[in-house]
């Protein structure tokens, strides 16, 4: 039990190191967005969702209303539904309340580590180790980033307003390489958002929501139909 927990901490260390710059930048940006140290750190403590937190900063700075921000957070995080649903197959049996505790720590990164583990079934103590060290890193470096941000010169703080978008690009481009579906998803969502923006059709929060869902659904329908056509074609060829 104790060994599994330690093994989990060890496996989670790589996540903790990876979180360091992202959480630090989040703290910095939260500062420039006007959040206090406590408000910024509290978001990392209670929400603990990198992308959603970054997006909410963005929306706060645009003056988007809180309800829309919460709905956006839900849309962005709903993908975890998929991840935990598939993870469930891999986890050791445990009482519901125990699973309810460690499920709080399931992020894209901790999911990847747990889901790709080579053991057939993952021990509960291991999951706690992975999630606790990652969470600790996220929260403490958020606070550190906020504190550091106060002492930077003006031109650097201005330049840092790009950090959020640069991070999004840094996440997106590697996934785009050699993957037409990812390119189309991102391009279509960007195009829809640009049309909404130029036409002043919706406020920012809703615009992001509509372009995201619109693109995700449309591309899925197109690809599903295409793969259906391909299998139909293959069948025909086999029969003839």
């Amino acid at each position, binding site marked *: 039990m104790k060994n599994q927990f330690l093994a989990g901490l060890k496996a989670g260390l790589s996540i903790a190191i990876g979180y360091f*710059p*992202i959480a630090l930048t989040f703290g910095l940006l939260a500062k420039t967005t006007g959040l*206090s140290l406590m*408000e910024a750190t*509290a978001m990392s403590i209670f*929400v*603990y*969702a990198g*992308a*959603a937190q970054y997006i*909410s900063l963005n929306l706060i700075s645009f003056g988007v209303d809180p309800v829309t921000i*919460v709905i956006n*957070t*839900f*849309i*962005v995080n*709903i*993908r*975890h*539904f*998929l991840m*935990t*649903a598939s*993870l*469930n*197959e891999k*986890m050791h049996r445990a009482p519901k309340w125990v*699973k309810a505790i460690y*499920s*709080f720590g*399931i992020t*894209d990164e901790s999911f990847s580590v747990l889901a790709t583990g080579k053991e057939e079934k993952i021990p509960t103590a291991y999951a706690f180790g992975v999630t606790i060290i990652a969470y600790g890193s996220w929260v403490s470096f958020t606070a550190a980033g906020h504190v550091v941000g106060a002492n930077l010169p003006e*031109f650097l703080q*201005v*330049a*840092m307003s*790009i*950090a959020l*978008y*640069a*991070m*999004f*690009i*840094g*996440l*997106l*481009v590697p*996934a785009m390489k050699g993957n037409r*579906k990812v390119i189309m998803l*991102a391009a*279509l*969502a*960007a195009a829809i958002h640009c049309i909404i923006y*130029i036409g002043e059709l919706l406020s920012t929060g809703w615009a992001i929501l509509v*372009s*995201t*869902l619109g693109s995700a659904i449309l*591309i*899925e329908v197109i690809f*599903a139909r295409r793969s259906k056509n391909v299998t139909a074609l293959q069948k025909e060829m086999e029969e003839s």
Partner: protein
Amino acid sequence: MGQTYWWMLFGMAVVTYIPRMVPLTFLDGKELPPIVSGVLSNIPYAVLGALIFPAIIFVQEGNILFGIIGAATAFLIAFLGGGVMPVVLGTIGVLAIYGFFM
């Protein structure tokens, strides 16, 4: 930010926790229809596209060039195989130089 902020935080915490907790505790391995899981797995890439454009162009009010330089730098570093951190730091660096001399 005040009290509204804390209510928003509470809402964000709840809607983040539910998709993580429900499948592990209540669903116990029921499968989703493929079209639904397909759409769900598309969302991360679509949301990134929507987040980047057009907002990155207008990141500095009244100075479109700032956004364009930033976007081009970030794409270039990312395309050349830089990880997230080199992309972020490199882009900040280029814009800091640009801002310093403007």
